[in-house]
């Protein structure tokens, strides 16, 4: 457990010291929301209706953008190889890195959602629901991302391949995430999103660890 915590702690520390990268994602997230009202025009009811979808698109894209650095730095400086000999199975190493990655890339987005709510003239109830949907859905996005990042870690310019690879996988997350916010929908979408998130989060460390083992050769 010490090792698990130490790994999360190190990744958080590195993210804070590098600073800029995490901030870039938040900035991108907010920028999308700033642009959309200009594109749609001054139709507030329509904007309110589209707001949850816009927030999801913005979150989706910024999470895809941040994906690449999940394993790449550790691969380049050899940490990933040395972590294979740690007192922690590679699956647990991946899980720790996924948690740290969620804290660094998804949590700041959640914290920035009030700004988007304001820009997109969302009601507070709508905002609360969106945050809840993101809270449930983002772990699935990060987990799919871990899969994509692990598969492409050996490619020197894999930066864009990973997002393209996991895009089709992550679309259900988006569908149910937005579906959850439809006032006419029952609890079906919510349950589906929770199920999807739990399953992906549980399985991705194993799949990603397998991919990393193969990439190490």
């Amino acid at each position, binding site marked *: 457990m*010490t*090792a698990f*915590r*130490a*790994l999360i702690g*190190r990744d958080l*520390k*590195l993210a804070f*010291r*590098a600073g800029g990268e995490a901030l870039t994602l938040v900035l991108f997230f907010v920028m999308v929301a700033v642009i959309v009202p200009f594109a749609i025009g001054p139709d507030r009811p329509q904007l309110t209706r589209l707001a949850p979808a816009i927030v999801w698109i913005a979150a989706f894209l910024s999470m895809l953008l941040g994906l690449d650095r999940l394993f790449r730095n550790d691969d380049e*400086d*050899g*940490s990933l*190889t*040395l*972590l*294979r*000999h*740690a*007192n*922690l199975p590679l699956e647990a190493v991946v899980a720790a890195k996924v948690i740290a990655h969620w804290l660094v890339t998804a949590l700041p987005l959640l914290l920035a959602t009030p700004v988007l709510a304001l820009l997109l003239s969302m009601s507070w109830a709508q905002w609360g629901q969106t945050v809840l949907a993101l809270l449930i859905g983002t772990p699935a996005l990060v987990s799919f991302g871990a899969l994509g990042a692990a598969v492409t870690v050996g490619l020197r310019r894999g930066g864009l391949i990973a997002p393209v690879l996991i895009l089709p996988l992550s679309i259900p997350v988006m569908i149910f995430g937005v579906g959850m916010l439809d006032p006419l929908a029952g609890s079906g979408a919510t349950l589906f999103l929770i199920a999807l998130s739990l399953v992906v989060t549980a399985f991705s460390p194993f799949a990603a660890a397998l991919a990393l083992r193969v990439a*190490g*050769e």
Partner: protein
Amino acid sequence: MTLASGDLGSLGMAAMNQPMPVSEAFQPHLSVRGLSVRRGERLLFADLQFELAPGGVLLLRGPNGVGKSTLLLAVAGIVRADSGRIEGAEPTELHLVNYQSGLKGRLTVRENLKFWQAMNGATGLGLEAALDAVGIGGLGVLEAGYLSSGQLRRLALARLLVSARPIWLLDEPSAALDAEGEALLGQLIDAHRARGGIAVIATHHDLRLADPAGVETLLLGGVS
């Protein structure tokens, strides 16, 4: 592939004669049999074997590109062997040192070492003692990015000291080290052997070991 000196049996026996302290002595036994490794289409070596008993050191020699690093990676479990068996090399029983340091420039020297201590188990020296032992005792609060490559190498070696593990796989461990550093490396390996540890070392330099007995050399040659 040729075994340059000694046959397999004497290799283990010579190592057994090393003086061994009773406390926390390791009892590793590394055995490699019939190992073949392929990189891409190229067969690097075939049917390679060696055996190491506590205190044993194996030096891997041979020209560049002959597969010394790959052999170490195969023993470390990173590269899959084409055929053959490697016994006694549990991932949590060994340390690998290669040209990649696994150190983060944005973390301080102490933070880097503390991280690897947490990952590999705090079974060896304390942080400060380990940093002192490799001669960078005063640099603990400095960010590792400011270290010279020789100092980085010393920090990478300190990683071996904070977590006691019986098998050391060292790939050019003296790279970037100064004369004093090379002497230090020799002392570290001597101390490791005295505890019963095993080392497999790929190097082009002559290591300064106190006791050359029990040191075997494996000369790798190309298999076409």
